[in-house]
């Protein structure tokens, strides 16, 4: 799914300059926990987040996040925008809540990042009794 399509689906706006809207993102992740972003995403993920501090962009760079969408109409501080411009990570904005932003994009066919081993190990240990 391209960023252009995503912008249409969430009726969103761009924050950083000169974004190539035809770039493809392969999957999506919604999280305000940066460690979860590091653990549960793949290269080429678009991140939905309500957190707007510079750490979001740094986390995105490390994890290979392709673009960030700030939800609930949040606008990031200038420092965040500066780092994003420097790292060429597109920032987008959505007026919808985290749930609706993710829901709209997922329902339009962008898959999630899937179930990770780390999750299934814990899941099995807690709920099915297997290791």
């Amino acid at each position, binding site marked *: 799914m391209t960023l252009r399509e995503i912008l249409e689906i969430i009726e969103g706006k761009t924050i950083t300059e000169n974004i190539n809207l035809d770039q493809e993102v392969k999957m999506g992740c919604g999280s305000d926990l940066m460690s979860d972003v590091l653990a549960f995403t793949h290269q080429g993920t678009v991140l939905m987040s309500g957190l707007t501090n510079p750490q979001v962009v740094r986390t995105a760079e490390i994890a290979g996040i392709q673009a960030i969408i700030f939800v609930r109409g949040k606008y990031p501080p200038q420092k965040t925008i500066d780092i994003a411009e420097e790292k060429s990570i597109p920032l987008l904005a959505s007026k919808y809540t985290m749930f609706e932003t993710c829901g709209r994009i997922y329902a339009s066919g962008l898959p999630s990042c899937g179930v990770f081993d780390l999750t299934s*190990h814990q899941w099995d240990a807690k709920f099915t009794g297997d290791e």
Partner: protein
Amino acid sequence: MSIFWELPKRLSMKTEKEELSPKITKLKELTYEIKIGQAMTKDVVSVSPDITMCELREVLQANRISGTPVVENGQMIGIISVEDLINAMGVCSPISTTNNREVTSASQEKMTMASVRESMTMTSVRENMTTTPETLFADEPLARAVSKFNKFHFGRFPVVNRQEELVGIITQDNIVSAMLKHLETSYYQEESLIYPTDRILTDRILEDLIADEVNLILRYHVNALDFDHAGEASSKLKKTLIRLGIPPQIVRRAAIASYEAEMNLVLWGEGGELHVKVQPDQIKLETFDTGPGIEDIEKAMQPGYSTAPEWVQAMGFGAGMGLPNIQTCTDEMELESTPGEGTHLKTTLYLEANASGFLGEGATRGRETNPQAFGHA
């Protein structure tokens, strides 16, 4: 343990240690990159519902396949397999209804086979097929197929477009072949695509260095509670590792581990040092701090365990995932801490094991040429 990722595991040669530690592998990423439509067999043999089971047997045998979709007026209405054929024979066979098996002589057997064959001409595919079969969409990622093969233990899934028209068929062998093909063509391209302008001339510096022992040491200083620059050391490290020609997947793991460790130095360690030793076969990543130390290391290693105050959580950290994340991303991890004195984290990522993990000998073993072949249902 989930069987969702059993397929990639089977593909790679792994040591016992690696088997135990969950990995973010290239193969997992690939299952999202490749679409089912790219992996499926496009020339599907299909049959009409009105042919007899006897004719079906000939179709399956002639094409060396173990199952096939049933199509009527362009729409797929069911699927039929060798198993259905065997079940139909069981129902029709007189042997299955008699208790007196001892008397089966050669001539009787001949007669029985003849009568089975005859009865197979009386029953149609429509009566024996599975209706409303599970299907996959051609535009879905391969990961959907992997999970569906794990959920339903079928040998194949018909692939349809969004208009529900049959466009192909996919088996587990198709998945393996498609992933291997993709790996071969994209592995070397990918490195240069990610940071095309950021490369220096030599492709792999480490391999070009001639010495009895190569040891490249990178040191970064991390300041306490400096949130404007927190993460910068890891960002620099990531760029440097890419320039050194380290495979991108390993760079990503090293960068995540170092970023989590760096955040620990910033938040808890009262600042510290990040030392990275790059060798041709491994990367050693260590942090040193003279902070308060960790009271209970075992507890700190549990996913979700956190002592973080609210202001740390407001920054998106302190969810108790830092140390488990580091463990997931590295091959070896050692944590030494003395309360009141400081913490020393030692981790190692192996370069060789991972390279052979998905491109080595083990990856190509067990490859099948005929995806719909008998015996691979």
